[in-house]
């Protein structure tokens, strides 16, 4: 492998890590505060991807994508709010079996709705940032650089939200002890709704941002959900730093695994081997929170 190729694959891994981080951060944030694994997280991502593609293609290149992104995030946030109020509120504190099945049911409903509304065909959208860079003799999509930048901005935003705002302080307090937080006069019920809406919005943001770089079909929900789980488990559920580290690992493994002929068919298997290995040594992942 030449240095140019090495650089290219590393940058490809970073681009994978970028969108995966946005999705996994939402999953992890929700788990940290609500102690619920959201099986419908991938479905929200898929909804956002389809909404973005449809709007972008309607409105036209350039501006269309950004309009689609805004609408998609708003739509997924709204769906998140409805799901939290109608379903999640009734499963907090119950066995995690009930929580898994409740959000799984939501994912079935959302996935079914997506197939009815958008059909089963793959869709694509033109990149809002066309053009390629020259990377050591190889061409690299400018849009991938945008994805990496977006992930960094979002990581900084999530960090600032958690550590520099009242909302973030309350979320961190809710992670530690929701009952005590409630007793100090914070409306924890509303806080949970807010957190879930933010988590859903992040899933949507991930789906929107990924849309120009992939073909969007009606099975991307489970594909991304499995990877987001792997990231959360490797990094540790509930930890934003863990999500970042996990996304980097998974993004790189997929990028390098796919290009090396000997490992190509097993690229995804490597992700799960790493996931198994990490959990075997550290049962809560690299930066994980204990389960309540």
């Amino acid at each position: 492998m030449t240095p140019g190729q090495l650089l290219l694959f590393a940058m490809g891994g970073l681009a994978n890590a970028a969108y995966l981080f946005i999705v996994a951060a939402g999953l992890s944030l929700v788990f940290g505060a609500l102690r619920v694994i959201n099986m419908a997280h991938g479905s929200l991502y898929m909804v956002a991807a389809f909404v973005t593609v449809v709007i972008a293609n309607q409105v036209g290149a350039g501006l269309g994508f950004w309009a689609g992104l805004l609408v998609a995030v708003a739509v997924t946030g709204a769906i998140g709010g409805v799901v939290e109020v109608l379903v999640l509120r009734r499963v907090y504190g119950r066995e995690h079996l009930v929580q898994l099945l409740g959000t799984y049911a939501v994912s079935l409903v959302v996935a079914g709705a997506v197939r009815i509304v958008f059909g089963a065909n793959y869709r694509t959208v033109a990149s809002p940032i066309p053009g390629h860079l020259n990377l050591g003799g190889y061409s690299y999509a400018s849009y991938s650089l945008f994805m990496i930048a977006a992930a960094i901005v979002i990581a900084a935003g999530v960090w600032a939200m958690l550590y520099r705002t009242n909302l973030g302080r309350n979320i961190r307090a809710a992670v530690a002890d929701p009952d005590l937080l409630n007793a100090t006069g914070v409306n924890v019920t509303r806080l949970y709704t807010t957190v879930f809406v933010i988590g859903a919005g992040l899933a949507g943001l991930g789906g929107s941002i990924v849309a120009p770089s992939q073909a969007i079909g009606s099975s991307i929900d489970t594909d991304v959900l499995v990877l987001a789980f792997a990231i959360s488990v490797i990094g540790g559920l509930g930890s934003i730093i863990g999500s970042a580290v996990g996304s980097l690992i998974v993004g790189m493994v997929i990028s390098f695994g796919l290009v090396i002929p000997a490992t190509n068919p097993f690229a995804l298997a490597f992700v799960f081997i790493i996931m198994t290995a990490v959990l075997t040594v550290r049962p809560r992942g690299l930066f994980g929170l204990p389960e309540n």
Partner: protein
Amino acid sequence: MSRLFPRFLGDRVRWGAVLVLFVFVGLIPPLAGLNENLNPDTSSRFQIFLGTSALVLALWAISYNLMLGYTGMVSFAHAAYYGVGAYTVALIFKRYHLPVLVGLGAAPFAAAAVGLVTGLVAQRAVRLYFSLLTLAISQLLFSIVFSWYDFTGGDNGISITLPDQLSDYTTLYYFTAAVVGICLLLMFILVRSPFGAALLSIRENRQRAAAIGINVKVYELAIYTIAALFAGVAGGLFVMYQQQAYPEMLYWTANAQPVVVSLLGGISTFLGPAIGAFIYVVLDNTISKQFPYQFDIILGAIVLAVVLAVPGGVSDAPSVFLRLRERFRRGEEAEKPPAESAGEAIRMFDVRKALASEAIQAEKVHSGKTLLRIEHLSRNFGGLRAVEDVSLEVKEGDRHAIIGPNGAGKSTLFNLITGQLKPSSGKVILDGRDITGRPPHVIAKTGIGRAFQITTIFPKLSVRQNLQYAMLAHAGYTVRPFGIADRIFAGEAQELAEAVGLGMWAGLPAGQLSHGDQRAIEIAISLALGSKLVLLDEPTAGMSAYETDKAMELVRRLATERFLTLLFCEHDMSVVFSTARTVTVMHQGRVLTAGTPEQIRRNPDVQKVYLGELEQEEVGA
């Protein structure tokens, strides 16, 4: 599980439903033939084919429910074992040209072997992380099957053509029904056995299960492997009627099918998932044929409705029916025991008898040898020395209290003794045996019963079962995969329930009793273990003054009658001085002093610790 022992009428309705199900299964082929004669549009072959698929789905779902309903484990890898079974049959038939029945015989063992190995890995984590690990394992197995093109056929899967005598639909149907029937019978025997009782107690409360001597991880691995074994049979049968195996069978989302089917039928009954399987197949072939996209939504709506509203699934129908009927017939029914015990149990026993027998044991104390010896025990949490260099001895037959202000290290000391925590240094010796750092289930078996500070019982099991399962575990019967658990020690458990004043409520789910009565169950469980030493962590926490007096009289009486040694910690000084014969005072993780209650009462250091504590509290407030 109370559901296995319903009220008499419910029993009749339930067995009636089971009979109808069996007759229905037996009559599907003739009914399908009749249907074809009446409606020439329909194909009896297809109907029988659907019946076969429902049978296989029933077996698969019930094997899943061994984990889901009976042990409380959510696995995403179960479909992978189903797939392993299917590929075993297909590969042995196609690549090695052996009869398909050889493959079917090998399938359960292949699936169980893969289940055992991967289960060992998944066992590194518990609950949610366990579920996520099974997800990784499932995807790993899927990618192996998907990518190993030369052996497994990759994404094409493997198609086989069965010999003529097995490709007749009716023959295949009855063959499948027979295999499924045998498997169900084996699984039914298993869940009713003492082994099944151990699984139920793990589902209800892992901590309590370990504290009555059940090795939780080993039982979980065993049922995980057994479930994989039966999933392998189901996968093998699938290949026989579908004549193909394909990689999607192993994909993690394939687990949705047995889960939905189990939920639909009811996860708390044995045959519930079988009913769910037939409903699912009918739904799948009516709705999904016409509205393929809507089917997901309908399925999701059903799962949501079941999860949020009817956790019992279809199998709850008889109970719902009974409840409605009772509403109409109120007044005619015989008087029932109250649904809640309201703390009455504590009032039920004879205090005079307890006090009269007090004298018997007083002599034993002085002649007693050392039962529990703790040597220089320490435990740090980071920089905090929760327990530091604690040494103490508990004599046989003694009632030894450990007192001290909050944060003195009393609960940590208890957790070190019973294995919930491992000591940083020092030794715990019970009756001459070194039990330092052993896991809780081993320590429970060596003879230490424990009542926790936070009530730790099996809430959905009846009071009698709570005690019975503790006795089963203690006697080592829970390794038996045969026999009927609820018939073993039933009398002894009832007797013990009566001894603690809970006889009238022995059939009620323990979680329905009042706080004081649940404490009594907690104490009774530690007694059911036949332990030499019983540890009580604040036995009267949260009780009223009246309940406290009664409960401690109960404890004293039982200790006397059963020659128990007590080690307890308590904040209520009247409890300590009325019950203890020896008192150890702890302060900031260390032993301050030890002696008789009278010596402790007079000790100026002890007074200082408590007064100092008081002053601080006053200043702090």
